[in-house]
């Protein structure tokens, strides 16, 4: 019924290799884009932007970045929080050092700087694998947070050690600072999210992605068939760092506006993003979005239902929230170890044949 392939003829290679080969899927994707760009901005207010959309979009970028490293290239990383901090501090230093350059470019440069740092910490991956690499990246996490706390140059010698984003505009509309309109912050992040997702999707479909996956599946075999592990692993670290850096820059500049490194980019953040990737589905761009949505929106939803809807005490609700989210993570992973993306894939398979499965 849905997702029908019958009658959907491909007459050129371009058509055959497009991202969404099934027509229904493609139109659904366009519809989501239109809704996101042309409908949502007219209806959102401060609460929706700050509690739902910004965290969702920004964590999605981080999850895509980590998914490239963990899901596609098989290199476990626990340094995401630290790399997000690099993006945030790079963005802050750029914003305050070059106030005349547009914030859009600062965010991209912040991603670039993070890519460099990430490659540096990715070097050990050439010798160590699996859990041992996780420990090496954990060192990056702690080192980076310590450094941003310790070296006062990074926070421009402010008394509190906090960095706070000054007001910057894009086409005359402020996107950072307190005067930001909800739609401006939302659209600014949306542009980055969509661009990152497109870039990631196409990278993973191309030669770079195939090399990453070859390394992930069996690095010795990949080396034998001619994949250079040095380049494959380091490009994965680089691309991952770029995305994570962008998300860190947006997290600081657009979402929170003021950041304290130990609190905002601690080890908890690394685990949060890693859980998003695992719950969403390793090696899937859609999974990154699904995982981010699950872990960002579910707590907000539960809080609103339990406290706002049912009027329960806030501490009880907060504790229940931990239990419910934890329980759902376990249930999801038992029911479908490959994450929400796999559930979605199975659902699509079923819908293809529905209502005549035989």
């Amino acid at each position, binding site marked *: 019924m849905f997702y029908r392939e019958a009658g959907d003829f491909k007459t050129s290679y371009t058509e055959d290799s497009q991202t969404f080969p099934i027509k229904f899927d493609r139109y659904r994707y366009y519809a989501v884009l239109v809704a996101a760009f042309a409908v949502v901005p007219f209806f959102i207010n401060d609460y929706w932007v700050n509690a739902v959309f910004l965290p969702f979009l920004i964590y999605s970028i981080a999850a895509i970045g980590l998914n490239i490293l963990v899901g596609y290239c098989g290199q476990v990383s626990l340094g995401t929080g630290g790399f997000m901090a690099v993006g945030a501090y790079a963005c802050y230093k750029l914003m305050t050092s070059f106030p005349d350059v547009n914030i859009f470019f600062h965010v991209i440069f912040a991603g670039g700087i993070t890519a460099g740092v990430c490659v540096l910490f990715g070097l050990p991956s050439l010798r160590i694998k699996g859990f041992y690499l996780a420990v090496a990246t954990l060192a990056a996490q702690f080192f980076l947070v310590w450094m941003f706390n310790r070296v006062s140059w990074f926070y421009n010698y402010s008394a509190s050690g906090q960095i706070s984003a000054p007001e910057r505009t894009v086409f005359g509309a402020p996107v950072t600072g307190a005067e930001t309109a909800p739609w401006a912050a939302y659209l600014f992040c949306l542009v980055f999210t969509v661009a990152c997702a497109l870039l990631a999707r196409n990278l993973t479909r191309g030669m770079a992605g195939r090399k990453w996956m070859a390394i992930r599946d069996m690095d010795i075999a990949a080396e034998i068939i001619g994949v250079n592990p040095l380049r494959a692993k380091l490009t994965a670290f680089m691309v991952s760092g770029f995305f994570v850096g962008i998300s860190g820059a947006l997290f600081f500049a657009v979402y929170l506006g003021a950041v304290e490194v130990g609190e905002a980019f601690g080890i908890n953040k690394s685990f949060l993003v890693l859980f998003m990737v695992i719950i969403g589905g390793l090696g899937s761009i859609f999974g990154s979005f699904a995982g981010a949505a699950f872990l960002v929106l579910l707590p907000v939803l539960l*809080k609103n239902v339990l406290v*706002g809807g049912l009027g329960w005490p*806030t*501490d009880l609700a907060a504790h229940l929230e931990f239990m419910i989210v934890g329980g759902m993570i376990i249930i999801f992973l038992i029911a479908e170890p490959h994450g929400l993306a796999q559930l979605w894939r199975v659902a699509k398979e079923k819908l293809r044949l529905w209502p005549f499965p035989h």
Partner: protein
Amino acid sequence: MKTKLLSAAVAAVMAAAPALADLTIVDTSYRTGPYAANGIPFSDGYQDYFTLLNERDGGIGGEAINLVECETGYNTEKGVECYEATKGAGNGALVYQPLSTGITYQLIPKATADGIPLHTMGYGRTSAKNGKVFEWVFNYPANYWDGASHAITHILEQNDGDISGKSIALVYHNSAYGKEPIRTLEGLAEKHGYDLTLLAVDHPGQEQKSQWLQIRREKPDYVIMWGWGVMNQVAIQEAVNIRFPMENFIGVWWSGSENDVKAAGDRANGYKALTFHNIGSDYPVYDDIQTHVVETGKAAGAGDQIGSVLYNRGMYAAMLAAEAIKTAQDMHGTSAINAAQMRDGMENLEMTEEKMAAIGLPNFGPEFKVSCENHGGNGFGAVSQWDAEAGEFKLITEYFQSDQDVLGPLVEEDSMAFAEENGIEMRCN
């Protein structure tokens, strides 16, 4: 995902429209996480006082108070979510008391843009004292830099005014909160000639072995602590373990509640903490709380914190907010005030001994007067000491003022830097 968004939408709409009321007060509390031990008593005190006003007087000036609680977990992201969710509650939130320096830094620009006053009592951004720059932020009656100066003044008194060559270590929470006093302590070190050692403790503060090992090795004459939550208990326990003389260990007012010292047992006896309000439950207002709040079963939380240091502080914060509301009602001739009128009330707040006695809290806090230029009060504080046998803190000094000669220029410098960064024009001309 779509259905999830949709249901989130429904829930958010439900959350955004609580019962209509006249004066909305938001309590951004934290009853969960590593800081809950300190967050619960403060929140209980804050809520109970407003409950008392509702039950006994029918609100303030005839307007009932609508109390909205939101759990932040001392986490900035949740704090932002709470702020956005509650700022439009009822007729609009009147004042925020986030009880977190990190969240305060987030909220200063947001609340300024939205026109909602912030009262960061004894925490937050110290230079917000300068009302010429920070129109919407208040930190009366005392701030961190006052606290740092109080601690040094107290040490000076014990050493007959000469502490040159003495060594003082600062054990601080490695965050905006803990870093606040460093600049002042450095400034005071220049003036008084003591050596300052800085020892940072990372969030949440359960791991402090290496810091206390260093203290044990270097044997500083005094240790000052800027801790919060579980960090306090651990630090006091570690100090007991290395047999550091407790009377030379001074915590800021956020490191001086019963929860912090009780875990360490009898040997915590003599631990000192600063405070900017009085201690204990020997006040007429507690009788009213007992009759109108506790006995009617309306006490917040478990109701077991009444009379503790942080409960008193939460109640004191609520009392100051209520007095500011009264001032605003008198000024504007309306009982249903809005956030902007609340700000005027806070800016013209004057706490006198007669006022406090009339409320039922005689001699509870220092007298102070807020003005357009000075949003921080006069910087009076006192030192309290833990008596393990009696199980309570006791004031051991009178209220004394902080070193305004050192603090004044620091406040001026920091607030001007903020004004320049954000293009703020000076007020109060």
